């Protein structure tokens, strides 16, 4: 990978201008740059924008785009509000050394299929805020992308929720074959599935089946789990076939739901 010109703006306005008007490429965690073969005419480093934070604002939690996975994993506020959800979600991602580099913003913006984190964020109903003032559901953004170059500023989460993340990997430091996060928001169930191997999707039919009851019966859980597999598309790659993904997803969803229900 080659970067012809590098800029490290100190204001969001300037960063936004470079991205929009000078065709700058935003650089988040930058861990993927090394495997990229493209030439970047202008790299716009977001490291100078002060986007490293996890804070409570009003009725929600804001996570700055440059917040690292390691911060998500260890942040006391996230732990207090979501239990071990973030820790279990990101803990498989390579090692501490990479998690000290890669960012929530880079993951959301990249809409990566294999992502563990996007699955959990979508299940939590995360919204992404594009500078200066556009807010969008992350799930929607992952599905549709953006039409114009953007500066992803932060991710918004509800103030609290109860959720659990389940995944299947051939080995611990591999990418997931399939993953799912089930969340009880306090008033409804949400289920997201990622690494299909395509990117994360919500499971509206399965979510509807579960209704607004924190204690659905085992039968309802099982049928919701099956519904999740029925309503999604799966693909094949070197790690597993579409059929295998479809087959084990209900097992993971059921286990995730049961864990939250308890």
């Amino acid at each position, binding site marked *: 990978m080659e970067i012809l010109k590098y800029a490290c703006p100190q204001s969001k306005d300037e960063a936004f201008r470079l991205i929009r008007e000078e065709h700058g490429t935003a650089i988040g965690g930058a861990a993927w740059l090394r495997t990229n073969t493209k030439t970047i005419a202008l790299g716009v480093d977001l490291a100078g924008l002060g986007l490293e934070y996890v804070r409570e604002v009003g009725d929600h939690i804001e996570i700055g785009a440059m917040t690292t996975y390691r911060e998500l994993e260890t942040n006391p506020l996230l732990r207090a509000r979501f239990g071990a959800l973030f820790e279990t979600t990101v803990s498989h991602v390579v090692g501490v050394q990479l998690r000290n580099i890669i960012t929530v913003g880079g993951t959301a913006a990249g809409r990566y299929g294999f992502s563990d984190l996007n699955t959990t964020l979508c299940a939590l109903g995360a919204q992404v805020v594009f500078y200066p003032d556009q807010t969008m559901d992350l799930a929607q953004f992952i599905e549709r992308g953006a039409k114009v170059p953007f500066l992803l500023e932060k991710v918004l989460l509800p103030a609290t929720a109860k959720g659990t993340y389940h995944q*299947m990997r*051939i*080995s*611990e*430091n*591999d*990418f997931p*074959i399939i993953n799912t996060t089930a969340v009880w928001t306090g008033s409804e169930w949400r289920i997201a599935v990622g690494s299909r191997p395509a990117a994360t999707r919500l499971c509206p039919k399965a979510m509807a089946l579960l209704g607004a009851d924190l204690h659905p019966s085992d039968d309802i859980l099982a049928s919701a789990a099956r519904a999740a597999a029925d309503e999604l598309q799966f693909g094949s790659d*070197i*790690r*597993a*076939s579409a059929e*295998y993904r479809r*087959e*084990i997803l209900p*097992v*993971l969803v059921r286990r995730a739901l049961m864990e939250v229900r308890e």
Partner: protein
Amino acid sequence: MQNNDYPIPLPNDAKLEATKQFNVVAHDLPKVDGEGLVLGRPAYTDDLVPPNALYVKLVRSPHAFARILSIDPTDALALPGVACVLTWKDIPRIPITRAGQGNPEPSPHDRFILDEYVRYVGDEVAVVAAETEALAEKAAGLVKVEYQKLKPVLDFEHALDNPIVIHPEPGIHEMFPIGFEPKRNIAAAYHMEIGDVEQELAASPVKVETTVHTQAQQHVALEPHTAFSYIDLQGRLVIVTSTQNPWHTRRLLGLAFQMPLRQIRIVKPRIGGGFGGKQHIHVEPYVAMVTMKTGRPASLALTRREVFEATFTRHEMRVKVRLGANPDGKLRAIDMQVLSNTGAYGEHALTTFMVAGSKTLPLYNKVSAVRFGGHVVYTNKVSAGAFRGYGAIQGLTGLEAAMDELAHKLSIDPVELRRKNMLHEGETSEVFRIMGEGTEGVAMNIESCKLEECIARGKELIGWDFTQLVHEVAPGVLRAKGMAIAMQGSGIPLIDMGSARIELQDGGFFKLHVGATDLGTGSDTILAQIAAEELGVDMEDIVVHSSDTDHTPFDVGAYASSTTYVSGSAVLKAARSLKTKLIEAVAEKFGVAPKDIVYTQKTFMTADGTKSLSLNDFSYDTLYHDGEKMKTIEATESFSGSKSPPPYLAAFVEIEIDTETGKVNVVHYVAVVDVGTPINPNLAKVQIEGGLLQGIGLALYEDVRYSEAGHMLSHNMMTYPIPSREDVGRITVELVDSYEPSGPFGAKSAGEIGIDTPPAAIANAIRNATGVRLTEYPFTPERVLAALKAAKTQHT
């Protein structure tokens, strides 16, 4: 993640008997280079490249099989800073093998350093050298190559007698008969039979047949293959390289370039892991070509992707085993038929395949008839080569699966079935005599075999109870146990040779020069331990220098589990011989007979106690003070084994299997091992622990995958993950007391045996858990679940 708090019996901390017998040997001394390596001092090839070296990049084939019609380097050469672009037209057309093996090599000479044909994706096409790495890479991209694409053969099951011939070219040949038939895509073939297998099988009341398919595997030594070269003051070619066999490298390069061997020096600095992956010439020819062409130093460090795509893998094999037995479990016949995939070239084709039989079949030496045979075929995939445990792991996986099937059929404890049939101390096997690595073997009596002890202790450690090998820990989640036993060898008898030179230095210390190649295993350390023990000095008194064709005596290199036994025996002989010379010299000085000299505590004394001289004082006398009697006292000795005493291992594994998802985890892997006297118990133990994890990787995780056109899909560590420290719950390795009379201080080998059992033991545990015999490796969750479902469908 596995729970590591799994309750296990405490390891046996009682020291081995050997520890009491020796002062230096059998003690856990730290590796001599350990601290320096941890601190990251420059030590590996890439740390030592001269600052003015040219960078070398290789143009590689994008096609699985093609003829090169033209190579146009004009654009590449036009870039300022590009030194040269070299192609097959720039070197003599000499068929060689890249396999680092004895002379003559048992591998066919079916390869040219560069050729008009390319036979796998990644095969070398041209060599580009430039002032910077980026420039070399850019220039490599500008070399225009026109190919005539040919249809490849990718499936090894369809290679034999395929109308597509991978090696139709003239001039290639075998060095001695190995069954080489390139027109049939056969790199090597072999057949042997003792007794009448068909008749014995027919007469056996109980028969089983099992076929396993083990996949290719990547070594993934953390240091990529790296070399640099330069011309020394005397105009000789010096190559510094991460090689396991400096002398073979020198000999093969001499052949390839038609150079006298005296013109070449090979130096091996520290190596960042090998496992057989550096037992070949992969980078050396290309830096040498550039240095010879330009007169300048040249360096080449493969990218990780190149290591994956264009070095070597383990041989993929299909192993079919048929057993015949009596109802009491007495084995009567073993038939093992193997098909092996050598990929594009035949490096180690024959030897790997032979070992599938020669290092497994003797385990069950009481049979009336045994047969082994099959073919090693070419395909248009990256070549297979040496890889720790080669052949043995594949053959054993088939054999130990069949043994467990037999136990199931007879409803007897698989442990007891093995005990009834296995090799014991004082016995032999005809297979030793008939099968070696290069066709014929060497007869040998087993003087040390503590398999019984290994099994007994292994059962204790895992808590083996035949009546309860499986239990449910959660709905759909089973824990189950399985086992397997294994043997290896210790060097290749009458072929492997190592030498050592020890010289007394002023200050009373010794310089130990060995050709042996420490690839991270700690052989410099254990060889120094052997010397120190015999010379009655401390470890600090031995300074080791190894693996330099100019400055150390000959050694075939580090492979075939040879270093401790072969090179170690050479060191012991040299130390003995030196001790004799020292005593003779002191005796002369004292005017007494050598038998009247007592040497102890680094001091020489006359038997009557009247005269005494410290080793330190003597070292000054002989080098500075003794006038015309002054001399350097040194000894050089060599060793080539007349036998290859096997180490033995009993493995017991507890797995957890999720029957709803197919995921299998290793909860606890126990290996109890007879390596003879461990020269350094900790280093031996870690060798085995590391081997076990590689074997577990083969069993469960690692797979070399290709696209339909023959492009490798698993070409980096993202797509080919190696086991991390969170994959396996716990590995317990214990060594048992054993003493091999033919080995140095009773030692046998430890380097390879660790890798052999996991594929079989894990398969046997899954069989015990579910009743399903898995045969297609690796056991990914998808494969396991599919097999469980298929079995269910069959039953209903």
